[in-house]
């Protein structure tokens, strides 16, 4: 079956969601948006889906922007970013999807700067809500559209956010944080251990790893309906 790397990433993230979860994504997040919708529709997960634009269990037709008016399609109430942050602060958000420019071995995220904070070599976008969400929400699912030694590093230049990071999904593989360190959990069928090792800034032990289960036909059929314009591919 034909599928893209984005499809694989969406499916990996969707499979992380559980009945009873309340899950959030912010801006620039078509892959997480597709993952939440896939978990609800294809996997039948009872997930409460809140997005930055204010939709609650909305059914948007996805676009590269995940902060626009389409994100309210089908919502019965507005529960915007401010409400979502508050919810996380009081312990009511079980899953958040976060990304970062750098992610390090300990699962810490940098979206702020390369170099000095006050006079950076590269000014990055900023961590958005991650600094407050990561320590307060139940589980953080991290995705990153690039996997190279600049993205997956031994130690971030700056800790924008750290906390309950559970999983990191990249175009090559899936990491899970165990005892405070990212461990390689599975390698996508489209990649290899050698490729992961070569493109990761921290050591990956050489041993047998499972192959990430690829998207099923049913998942792909649902993805076609959820994201017919393939916004998810724009992230890679």
């Amino acid at each position: 079956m034909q599928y893209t790397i984005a499809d694989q990433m969406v499916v990996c993230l969707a499979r992380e969601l559980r009945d009873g979860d309340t899950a959030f994504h912010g801006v620039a997040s078509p892959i997480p948006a597709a993952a939440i919708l896939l978990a609800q529709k294809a996997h039948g997960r009872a997930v409460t889906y809140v997005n930055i634009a204010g939709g609650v269990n909305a059914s948007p037709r996805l676009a590269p922007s995940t902060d626009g008016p389409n994100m309210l399609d089908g919502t019965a109430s507005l529960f915007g970013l401010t409400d979502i942050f508050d919810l996380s602060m009081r312990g009511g958000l079980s899953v958040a999807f976060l990304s970062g420019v750098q992610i390090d071995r300990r699962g810490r995220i940098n979206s702020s700067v390369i170099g000095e904070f006050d006079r950076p070599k590269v000014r990055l976008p900023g961590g958005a809500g991650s600094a407050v969400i990561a320590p307060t929400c139940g589980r953080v699912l991290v995705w990153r559209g690039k996997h190279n030694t600049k993205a997956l590093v031994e130690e971030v230049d700056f800790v924008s956010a750290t906390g309950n990071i559970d999983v990191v999904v990249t175009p090559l593989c899936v990491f899970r944080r165990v005892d405070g360190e990212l461990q390689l959990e599975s390698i996508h069928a489209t990649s290899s251990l050698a490729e992961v090792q070569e493109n990761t800034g921290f050591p990956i032990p050489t041993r047998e790893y499972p192959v990430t289960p690829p998207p099923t036909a049913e998942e792909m059929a649902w993805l076609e309906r959820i994201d017919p314009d393939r916004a998810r591919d724009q992230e890679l």
Partner: protein
Amino acid sequence: MSKLTTLQEAMGRVNDGDTVALGGNVLHRAPMAAAAELARQGRRGLHLVKTAGAMDVDLLCAAGAVASVTFGYIAYEPPYGLCQFFRRAVQEGRVEARENACYTVIMGLRAAVYGLPFLPVRGLDGSDLIAARGFKKVANPYGEGEFVAIPAIRPDVAILHVQEADELGNGRIGGPKYEDALMAKAARRVILTAERIVETARFEAEPDRTDIPGFLVEAVVHAPGGAAPGSCAGHYGIDDAQVRAFQAVTGPEELGRYLEQMAARTAHEGVSR
């Protein structure tokens, strides 16, 4: 009684050095026409406040209007990439990047709304932002726990683009609300630009749908297309060509031409009520 005025006059009320909160989020319902007019008027030293900004912040940085940005996230969403004018201005030391979490911008605005110099906040544990920004802590006087104290953010002016306004300053937002209403309450003064100017009777018929109470607003501008080339829910989507044209601008002359074109579009469409 009417607070209706021109974009030029309204933006003339913003002073060099003011702290300016911008409504909307990324490329959605940002006050683009207002930002372009501030740039065109040569405003300098502005302290911008926004949770997630994109072309509004980038354009004002390109024009050299900005001293600092208080923000959680300054970038476009895919496929437009980073805000290169903002990025370069920060890297070259021309603009101070006062990075927050989006939520700490919100808590700073809330502190201003509540008349407090700070608010404690949960979260931020382990983030280098605490030290980098010099945030102090306060202890829970009733038990365990220390919390980062976020200083109040009180904008001199909030500039918000809404779908509908009346001449008294009442404003109604369609689609996502973002942090606009909070900004309106936190700021000393509020300026609205609006797609449509409607009769006050329309607000009186459904007062529960009024997002910005008129008595907080000092000026209202009829600015159809005022969020373009970003989107405005119910009116238009993102104008891909115009966003890319802005990103391709090099040098002040090209920027000047781009701003004049934006102004011409708003002025033309803004003639009739």
